[in-house]
Structure formats: C-alpha cells, structure tokens
C-alpha cells in the first residue's frame, strides 16, 4: 500500500508533466480566446472542497458517467473504484499546483532571451529545449515536488472516486484515516512515520537537485 501510494503519486506527477508544461507555457506566453476560462478551470480544484471535485470526477468517470461509460462500453475499461481512479484523482488535484509554479517560472524568463536565440537561427523547439526549459527548470522542479506532495497526501477526491479498497485503491492517507477510525493506533503511527520519511526524502531530494542546478 505504501509502494502503491508512492508509485501512483510518481505516475500522476509524470503524467501531468507534459500537459502541465504545455498549459502553463500557453498561459504564460500566449494570448488566445478562452484563456481566462481555462485559467479558472485549471485552478478550480485548488479552491473547491476536494470531496466535491471527487464527486464531479465520479460522475464523469463512473460506469454511468459520460467518460467512464464510454470507456467501459468500448474498451472494457473501468476507472472509478480502481487504481486508475486513484490516478485520475491525484492528477486533477495536483495539476493546478504544478501549473501555478511552472507558469510563474515561464513568466519570469526575459522574452528577449528567446527572441535572440531565434535571431541566432534556433527554431521554436530548440529555443524551448535550450533556453526556456533550462531557465524555468527550478520552477518546474518545484512544481513537480508540489504536485507529488499533493498526490501523496490526497484524500478527499480519492476516497470518492476510488473508494478505499484494501490492496486495490487504498493509499497512505486513506489507510491512516481508516486505522484511526477503527482504533488501530499502532498501525496509524507506523504509517504516520512512513509519511514523515517520504515527505523528508521528497523535500530533501528536490533541494539537493536545485542546489546542484545553481552551482552549474
């Protein structure tokens, strides 16, 4: 269950990375119709009760939901109350945190640097890979850490979309909650210790990465 929590959190972070980069870059650098709507939608999960977000997801992804129903009928794929539901909840809940951080990082880059790279013969892709990404890397790594941390601790949306099925959808937070509920305090504290270790490793690891980054 601990490893399930860790890998599903890592997976959700990696999954939102390409979309998050695209959305945050579009929000930071381009003007387009509907931008403010997308901006608002992306941030909504931050401000809504996670349980409410979970309920929306359940209605969408459940067997009778629009998306869930389609996937069930055509691909025999169930989302709600499976590990995929956990993944979906983690993605949606951590996405806004990543976008906020990455977007700010993109906005801080002097656009002149990208323009000059273009005068030096670089195409859009090369400019993005050699100038934009490296200069925004601190913000992007920071955003990934935030997203990962949010995923590790996600509770409200997950329990609605995926339930708390031991061995299938039970995550660290859900397990701690359940242990406390049924009075298994020793288990709750053991899990608490693991949470502390995970959080410490994540923060320490990213600090180490950023320090290394500054030195080079």
């Amino acid at each position, binding site marked *: 269950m601990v490893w399930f929590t860790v890998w599903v959190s890592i997976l959700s972070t990696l999954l939102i990375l390409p979309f998050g980069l695209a959305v945050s870059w579009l929000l930071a650098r381009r003007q387009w119709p509907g931008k403010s709507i997308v901006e608002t939608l992306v941030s909504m999960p931050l401000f809504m009760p996670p349980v409410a977000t979970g309920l929306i997801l359940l209605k969408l992804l459940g067997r009778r939901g629009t998306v869930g129903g389609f996937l069930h009928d055509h691909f025999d794929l169930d989302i709600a109350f499976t590990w995929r539901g956990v993944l979906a909840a983690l993605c949606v809940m951590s996405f806004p945190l990543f976008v906020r951080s990455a977007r700010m990082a993109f906005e801080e880059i002097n656009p002149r640097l990208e*323009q000059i790279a273009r*005068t*030096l*013969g670089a*195409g859009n892709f090369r400019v993005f890979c*050699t*100038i934009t990404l490296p*200069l925004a890397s601190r913000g992007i790594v920071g955003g990934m850490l935030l997203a990962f941390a949010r995923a590790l601790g996600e509770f409200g949306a997950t329990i609605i979309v995926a339930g708390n099925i031991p061995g299938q959808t039970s995550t660290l937070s859900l397990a701690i909650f359940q242990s406390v509920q049924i009075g298994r305090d020793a288990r709750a504290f053991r899990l608490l210790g693991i949470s502390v270790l995970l959080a410490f490793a994540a923060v320490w690891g990213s600090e180490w990465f950023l320090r290394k980054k500054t030195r080079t």
Partner: protein
Amino acid sequence: MSLLLKNISLPLAPFTLEIELELAGRVSVIFGPSGAGKTSLLDLVAGLRRAESAFIQLDGQVLTDTSRGVFVATRHRGVGYVPQDLALFPHLSVRQNLLYGSKSACEASRTISFERVVEVLEIQPMLQRGIAELSGGEKQRVALARGLLASPQLLLLDEPLASLDANLKARIIPYLARIRDEFHVPMLYVTHDRHEMLALADELVVLINGKVAQSGAVPEVFRHPANLAVAGLLTVETVQPGRIVKTADGLVTVAVGSTMLSAAEQNLPADATGVYVCIRAEDVILLQTGEIASSARNRLAAIVQTVVREGPFMRVELDCGFPLAVLLTKQACDEMALEYGKQVVALVKAPHIHLIPR
C-alpha cells in the same frame, strides 16, 4: 549591404512608426531620443515584431512584404541582434553562448571563424567562465561576438554601450570599429550617444517620434540639419533666433540681437526673414584680443562666461551679444588662460553658420 525599408507603418503608444528608407553604409546609425521608435525599427528588421504594413528587403531578399503576405521567420533572416540588455544566456558558459548561433548556420554560410572573433574581441581568457562572472565590458564583447558568429548579413545593435560608463565606452568603441573593418559585417546601430555616432557612423538616420527627420552622410547631416529638432538633437550647441537683414553676393547677413553675422547659406526660401542661426561649438576659433585680421567673415568680441571640462575637451561659454558655445582642447584653453571675464575674439567662417528658416 543594401537595406530597403518601405511603406513601414507600426502603431506605437504615442505615435505611429512610419519609415521610408534606403541604407547602404557599412555602419548606419539610427540616432534619436529615447522613445523615438528606434528599438521597434530593429525588431521589425529582425522579424521579432510584425508591422501593420511593411516592405523590408535585405541585399535583394524580401524579408517582409505585408502586401503579399511574405514574412520570413526570424531564424532564417540572417540578421544578428545585440539588444540593449545584451540577453546573454545566463545558464550557459561564454563558449556555449558564442557557439549557440554557429550551430544553426550551415557550413557554407559560416564565413566568420570562431578563433578569429575570439582573438579580435579578446575573449580567450573568459571562454570557460559563466555569464555572471563577467564585467560589464566583457559582457558587451561576448554579446557582440555571439551576434557575429552566426555569420549574419546584417548586425543590429541596440544601444549596446548604453549601460557602460564613458570610460568603458571609449574602450569598447575600437572593438566595434574592428568588427566593421575586419569582418565586413554591415551594422545598423541604434544610439542616442553622439560620441558613439561620430566614432562609427558612415550614414546617419535621425529618428524623431517615429519618423525619419533626416538621413544622409554624417557631415552632411551635421552641416545642414533639416530642422530645429534635428539641430537640437545633434546638439549643434548654439541655436539662436535671428533675422535676415540682407542677401548679397552669396552672403546672408543675419542680425542676432544687436550682433550681425554673415552666413553662406544657400537654398533659403526667397521670403525667409526669421531664421534659426546654428553654430557648432567645434567650428568656433578663439583669438586673443588685438590679434591680426583673418579671413573669417565673423569676428565677434566676446567675454568668457564659463569654462567646463567635457570629455577630452573644454567647453567654453561666451557672451558675444548672444550666448555662444565653443569646444576647445585642454591645451588651447590653458595657453589662452581662459577664465571668467576674460575678453577674447571669436571667429566663425560664414559657411559654418547654418540657417534654418522658422
């Protein structure tokens, strides 16, 4: 180099940039006050901005033609750019900055060698350093070198020395002159600094409020500023209102207050009476009182008001019925023992008095 800018129209905040211009000099200086649209003009040439309407052609290749929907992407324009803030890539070393452009250029179009640029701009010792470890003058040279190494057909320079103090500026200008002479890369150089302009320009374009106020060879523009705004911008130091008294034998007699001046101005409108009298400080010669006659048409009794150091020169303000500025070497100033209240004679040749109708 031939750069053709036609039918340019780009609305900016207080005015519209409107340009019709043909440039062919090795170094064409765009000279104008801050906010005249100089940087926007460079951005248009580099393709970093789109104009409402524009036709831009560099050495026969059309880069922008809004009427036919032609817009060559920045990276295919062969135009190097050194912006005002230099925009060196802070996460790359000096060497990586320099090589950024040469990676994109194909072998055939690469005409400028890395080793030669590094040698001419004396960059060798800093190649391995990071950008943050460079001084202001070093950054300037690295930015120049990076622009050059993409082997551009035209180098755009946007006030590249603006952030440097006068001392450092004087040290970098020779490097720019070397680039001009050694690599034969034509430059479009934006500045509002007169010293840089005089040191580098073959051709001068005076840009005021988004319009070309005057363009031409440097001495020509200086000798005959098209209007008062240009004269003021070029700091033709003495600009005084005067009145034409008579015109005879190619000489125009002008009264400035109670002082009479002779000017050899041609092409004045027949009905002009009110004029601005423009005299450049370098064109005035000072004599001790009582010295012998000279060929200069204007011999003015004057009293020294102030003597101030200006770069390598001394600026002397005289009162000769109107304020007259004179630029002298320090030596000349010392020899004549110029100081407040001293009486002197100021000589100005008639062709050095320029009249602008008002």
